[in-house]
């Protein structure tokens, strides 16, 4: 369970109130206008912002006092998910340990995961030598080699074409099954494709998660405004 216990996040004049819980293993999409606070919410879960009020917890572990690295949370950013000067193997290895020193066993594990996401034999390449889709796979592999239970996606596949993006979302769904996934999305099709539930972010509040099918069948005002 990912629980927001009366959390308030403030940035200048902007304020976001969150009181909800997300089931273990669920895929939840955050939808709303740009500037509504979707990325702010992810930053708070990841530990880049500390709440002004309230407590965020995962499976009973309180996060507020934990540094980003100590939280059971991995994150894929909009861009710059890979260090361009490090090899794919090194980049993915960082998900296992943060000091760039992999033992032989660890390196083998990383190679296996690379094969699993379709990047077998590409460990020695630099990210620039990969296609956009392959780079996304490498970033995903880094999340896979770790075992953190919450995964945050801040539109990491936005730059990919529709077919590639769908492929990546399916890969997320299958490979990360069992982990709690919170994703920001501008595209309702993304939510349709893999999200179990959707939270609407609007007017300084985050709604409780609603079943995706139910939501789109019966959109509340905030969502129909957004969808147009």
């Amino acid at each position, binding site marked *: 369970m990912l629980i927001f216990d009366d959390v308030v*996040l*403030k*940035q*200048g004049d902007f304020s976001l109130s969150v009181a909800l819980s997300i089931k273990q293993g669920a895929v939840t999409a955050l939808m709303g206008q740009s500037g509504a606070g979707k990325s*702010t919410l992810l930053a*708070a879960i*990841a*530990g*880049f*912002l*500390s*709440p*002004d009020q309230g407590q965020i917890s995962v499976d009973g572990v309180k996060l507020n006092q934990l*540094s*980003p*690295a*100590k939280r059971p*949370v*991995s*994150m894929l*950013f909009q861009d*710059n*998910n890979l*260090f*361009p*000067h*490090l090899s794919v193997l090194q980049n993915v290895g*960082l*998900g296992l340990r*943060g*000091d*760039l020193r992999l033992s032989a066993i660890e390196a083998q594990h990383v190679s296996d995961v690379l094969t699993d996401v379709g990047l077998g034999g590409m460990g020695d390449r*630099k990210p*620039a030598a990969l296609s956009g889709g392959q780079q996304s796979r490498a970033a995903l592999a880094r999340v896979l080699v770790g075992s953190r239970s919450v995964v945050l996606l801040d539109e990491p596949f936005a730059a990919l074409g529709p077919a590639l993006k769908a492929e990546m979302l399916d890969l997320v769904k299958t490979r990360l099954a069992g982990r709690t996934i919170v994703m920001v999305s501008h595209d309702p099709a993304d939510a349709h494709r893999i999200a179990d539930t959707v939270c609407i972010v609007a007017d300084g509040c985050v709604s409780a998660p609603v079943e995706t099918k139910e939501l789109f069948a019966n959109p509340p005002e905030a969502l129909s405004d957004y969808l147009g």
Partner: protein
Amino acid sequence: MAHSTFAINPRWPGGIVAGLVLALTLGTLCAVAIRAEFQTGFGAADWAAVRFTVSQAFVSALFSCLLAIPVARALARRQFRGRSALITLLGAPFLLPVIVAVLGLVMVFGRNGLLNDAFGLVGLPEISIYGFHGVVLAHVFFNMPLVTRLVLQGWLSVPSERFRLAASLNAPVGRLIEWPMLRTVLPSAFLVVFLICLTSFAVALTLGGGPKATTVELAIYQSLRFDFDLGRAALLALVQFVICASAAIVAWKVTSPDGSGAGLDRAVQRWDGGAKRDVLVIFLAATFLALPLGMIILRGATEVLSLPTDIWKAALRSAIVAVFSSALSTVMALALALRAGRLAAVSGGLPLAASSLVIGTGLFLLVYPFVNPAKLALPITMLVNAVLALPFVLRAMAPAVAKIETDFGRLAISLGMSQQTWIWGVVLPRLKGPIGFGAGLAAALSMGDLGVIALFAGDGQETLPLAMYRLMGAYKMDAAAGAALLLLTISLGVFWVCDRGGRTVADF
């Protein structure tokens, strides 16, 4: 308010560096202030030095700007072979050792120079390069190219649509587009040059002198070196600091950071003629810049190999000082860039307002009671050179460091990278280009420095610029030309090697 909780860049090294810079600039100033003899007051000669310092800086800045405008305009409008080489050449005076340029100018404009030879042939009277106009000439030689680059950047930053619009409306391009652009670019360029000329020491030392053409910097040097009047030197150093600090504060307020010359490679397409005049202007500017250097190369080439061993030893000394000074400057700049924030910005900019003679005087006063300052000549030169180059090295590195942090800081934090891995595994590999450029800059600047070393050096401690100055003082112009060529080669060579080294290993 929600705030970012964790930062990955270490802050304490920047704190140490800031402390060191503050101690060397403001701390030495305190040492100076304590020794200054206020009761004796300011003599007529001192006032003359202040007047000369300010007036020559003003005139130098004025001419640098006035001459730069037509050159920049011509370069902005014309596309020709060798244009990018010429623009690169415009950046060279920054790396050029002052003493080398001065010798080159003497060979063109001096008593036995090209110009006087030509004048003699047609029966015109001889001109002299020494005094006010000589100092201004040298300053224009150094700074006109700098202003040209700044103004050229201004010209090229005007969207080409505006020129097309003006052409289709048949509107006056000058009043509509060019004058407003110059009004934003020129004031800051003028101030930068004014500031640089205020702290100029080597030019005044070589081309000035005498009661009519002594800068405050030169007066400090003379009262320490010849009169051994510590109180007067200290008082002058204080005055020099006030002059520079006020100019620097003004400059700080009006300057915008200059680009590295990126995007100067294209010409603006124009529809308002003037081709012949442009060609003439470019030819004259290129000659003015290239001729003195050409003379050095021509006269020096035959002399280099027959230089006395003293000169080679001086060259080695200079190179060693340059290597250490460059390494120190680069490490300091990295620490400040990682720290960022106000303290780093202030201590990174402070050396611009400091003069090497003021710092030198302060250090002289501090070490004098304990050791013979001549014993510390080289380490002190190394330290002072590193600090004086710091603003430029920092400027080369800070934007890149900031970008690395914006791009990858959060990722590194969320992965649990240690600061050590972050610095060695991410920042340094990604910063090779700027580090190479910055280190090369610092090394070249130190190589050519003729400032604090003149204050301290005893026998057998000369650096190459100082040895060259002494050769010129003894009218051994051929040997001086040889030494100049050697100095020029090492300065540009060391910059090239560092810059190249940084670039070839960068991977994307």
